[in-house]
């Protein structure tokens, strides 16, 4: 296949990828968008293989088949509550692939550049391997934290900022050495050493970030995987890779920005790997009595109300309560109650996590509203059920300038007539901040496992 055709296929694939992302503006067009993406990927791969740009067909076909099968099996089986972990794992694979391709490219005798070209090429390889390595181990660490294999409290080694700076400086030195020494085989060593250091940095950076910041971390790693792909594209002079990498990179960057804004944290602070985390500002502790409700009292409360809003949080995901909640909402709506969901941007461990869990529980998406849409309706709502959420409904964010979560946009649930909070105990959320919402006069607590509590409430409805 002549080069021109291959390049035009690449252009078509790029367009299809852009349309794929564009389709995600609405659930109706999203499915079509995914198909476009698959089509784009397919034609690009086919063109590359049949354009005789690849060799050793038996090997690559078998590799793709096996890899494809594994991917398909995982996609079928993964539980929606484990989506963040899956996404983290997939990021790590992209990072690893970037590292391997970068090293292979360096070793490839078929690749030959001279002079400035060579320098630039080596810079590209260096950057590709660097970003890929950080993405690889960072994502593995994120997977560990999400899966609960590693503790979600931030691991703060004393002098960690110094360590990060030292690693950074060493990498720059290695880079300089790598590039200026020309294309000698033993220059592989600085490259590999840098890769190892970058991997350590990746682990360290994510270890130092707390579980509540995971949405930002995953979005950030998503972005890095894009830049790694783009760097690989530069390295191989492949525009399709560059375009795709840029798309993914900016997508991840936007998500990170949205997550940071929703937590009122500085984007730069989080990127620098915990450099600017608020070092334990003490919040005012709250004392007082809480009103306690039983499941049957909650059921009667719901039955006598005209409008109900449910605020799901990570706790609901952990308890796998989304199906029970969905059934309860269906019953309420059948009885003529206006029942809706309110989703805070950082609810859950990943952007959009709650939406997926609710979709899985067959909740129609038009009753699932974002924070900005529903905040204004809360004062006229009769009952708000807060399920497994804590910091996202904490009034301290608006009322206490000293609180670690001050300034964070929250769902103003206390403005409703009655709030019922489903919680296992009075323990604090991830920010470690007391929540004065629990002690308000119009708030009641329903203690217990979310799923059990909702099932009991459902029985009484």
């Amino acid at each position: 296949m002549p080069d021109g055709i291959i390049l035009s296929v690449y252009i078509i694939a790029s367009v299809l990828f852009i349309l794929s992302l564009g389709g995600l503006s609405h659930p109706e067009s999203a499915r079509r968008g995914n198909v476009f993406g698959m089509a784009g990927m397919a034609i690009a791969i086919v063109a590359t293989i049949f354009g005789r740009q690849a060799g050793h067909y038996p090997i690559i076909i078998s590799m793709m088949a096996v890899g494809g099968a594994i991917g398909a099996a995982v996609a079928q089986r993964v539980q929606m509550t484990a989506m963040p972990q899956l996404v983290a794992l997939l990021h790590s694979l992209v990072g690893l692939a970037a590292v391997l391709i970068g090293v292979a490219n360096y070793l490839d005798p078929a690749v030959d550049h001279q002079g400035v070209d060579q320098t630039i090429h080596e810079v590209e390889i260096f950057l590709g391997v660097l970003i890929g390595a950080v993405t690889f181990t960072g994502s593995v660490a994120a997977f560990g934290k999400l899966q609960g294999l590693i503790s979600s409290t931030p691991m703060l080694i004393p002098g960690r900022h110094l360590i990060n700076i030292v690693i950074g400086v060493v990498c720059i030195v290695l880079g300089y050495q790598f590039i200026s020494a020309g294309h000698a085989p033993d220059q592989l060593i600085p490259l590999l050493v840098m890769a190892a250091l970058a991997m350590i940095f990746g682990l360290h950076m994510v270890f130092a970030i707390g579980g509540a910041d995971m949405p930002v971390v995953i979005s950030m790693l998503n972005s890095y995987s894009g830049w790694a792909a783009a760097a690989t594209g530069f390295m191989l002079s492949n525009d399709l890779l560059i375009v795709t990498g840029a798309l993914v990179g900016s997508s991840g960057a936007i998500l990170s920005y949205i997550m940071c804004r929703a937590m009122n944290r500085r984007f730069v602070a989080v990127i620098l790997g915990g450099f600017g985390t608020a070092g334990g500002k003490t919040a005012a502790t709250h004392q007082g009595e809480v009103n306690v409700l039983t499941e049957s009292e909650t059921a009667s409360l719901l039955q006598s109300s005209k409008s109900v809003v449910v605020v799901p949080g990570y706790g609901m995901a952990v308890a796998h309560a989304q199906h029970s909640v969905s059934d309860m909402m269906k019953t309420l709506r059948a009885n003529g109650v206006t029942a809706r969901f309110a989703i805070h941007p950082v609810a859950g461990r990943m952007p959009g996590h709650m939406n997926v869990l609710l979709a899985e529980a067959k909740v129609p998406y038009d009753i699932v509203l974002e924070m900005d849409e529903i905040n204004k309706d809360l004062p006229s709502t009769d009952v708000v059920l807060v399920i497994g959420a804590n910091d996202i409904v904490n009034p301290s964010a608006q009322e206490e300038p000293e609180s670690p979560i001050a300034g964070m946009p929250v769902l103003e649930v206390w403005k409703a007539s009655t709030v019922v909070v489903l919680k296992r105990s009075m323990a604090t959320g991830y920010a470690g901040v007391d929540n004065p919402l629990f002690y308000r006069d119009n708030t009641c607590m329903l203690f217990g496992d979310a799923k059990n509590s909702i099932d009991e409430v459902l029985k009484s409805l």
Partner: protein
Amino acid sequence: MRICVPKEVATNENRVAATPNSALSLQQLGFEVWIESDAGRAAGFLDEAYAQAGVTVMGDPRKIWDEADIVLKVRAPDRHPSAGFHEAELIRSGQTLVGFLWPAQNPDLLEQLARRGANALAIDAVPRISRAQKLDALSSMANIAGYRAVIEAAHHFGRLFTGQVTAAGKVAPAKVLVIGAGVAGLAAIGTAGSMGAIVRAFDTRPDVKEQVKSMGAEFLLLDFDEEGSGTGGYAKVMSDEFVQAEMELFRAQAREVDIIITTALIPGKPAPELITSDMVRSMRPGSVIVDLAAEQGGNCSLTQPDKVVTDGAVHIIGYTDLPSRMAAQSSEMYANNLRHLLAELCPEGNGQISLNMENEVIRAMTIVREGEITWPPPIKTELSTTDSGDALDTTIPKSIVTEQKPNTRQRAVTTLIGMSIGILAILGLGAVAPASFMAHFIVFVLAIFVGWQVVWNVTPALHTPLMSVTNAISGIIVIGALLQTTSPSFLVLGLAAVSVFIASINVSGGFLVTQRMLRMFSKE
């Protein structure tokens, strides 16, 4: 210890101080519970129900008093109608009596109880703090009274409460004025409103305005500079000028409204007279006044306690037993209040009570202790509290808001600096890099902008599928690996093969999980 609940001896008192449910809870606290036979009959709680709840039912009222360690009552001790004794004579030393004892109005009773060496707790002396709300029987009874007041008004009122447009003509909604927006007043506002009437309310305390409005009623504002909030969340006696202005307001309202429900009380003093006979005469025929302050003298000059008076064509209802008329509900709530009180007195749940004078609530309610009169309690320095708990301050503190202003200016400067650096960097790059690189670089920069635009349009509900699909398309790195498989080097081939394998997992996993997720999103 043994708790005994006698049948109420006061005429027309249908309430009972314990229900089968509350008896169960009391037993869980470790107490033994006895009740006089038929004590709960008038409230709809039969002896069998009590027996099933583990309560011992006794026929002889004397025995109930004799064997008790704690006596729970509704009303203060009174003369028994048929058995010929006065309940106060039966109180023994060491017994604890709990009920509506009204210490301010019953100094003789306090003397008697003290002489007999008993203890007494007045449930009407509960401090008006958040913690004590669950023991506050005044509020729970007032709530019921407010509701029932509206029902009685509707019963005596000849027209509909709710407005209607019917084929037989248009019906205007009834206009209701509620004077006093305490617990009873708010309950009346809520009930009248839910029955469809137009409700207006007045109170001397300006902080209740928000509560009134939140119930959908209009708050009548008196243009006067005096503020009516006294201590403990109650109103205080107002100056004569204020009262004059108040009465003018009521006079004007009386001509317009159909129903007036008055609840104005001042603790320890007679109820203020707010509705004079000329106001009553100016009301439209068929109007109804419900005077919830009848027992304390009445807010209306024509009120006669326990009766319905008709003046011209206006009915003035002076019932003083509204909670008793809803004995089933009020007994349940009162019994619950008592149950919480017992829990407060018996924190260990071992069936023994201790009158802990350090406990703010218990101290306020204990009027006689071990033969000493302990009422009134020492006055605590009041922090400002309102009747319904903390007034929630919903204004965002200044320090959080003003931070925003310098930020926007700061951001503009930062953006400008960022753009300048970016432009200089690109120029610098162009100076050293070859054209082939710059060609790729153009593509890179443009792709970033396209991505930026496209991704901002993604709906937040689909952010998770966005991440999985971007994952999938970053599997395009497989092309890079494929391109390397033409290399003669075995090592390179090996690395490339592994990369192909890994990237394929990404591609198929990413697209398929995205598809699975998107399939789940459905509209109704």
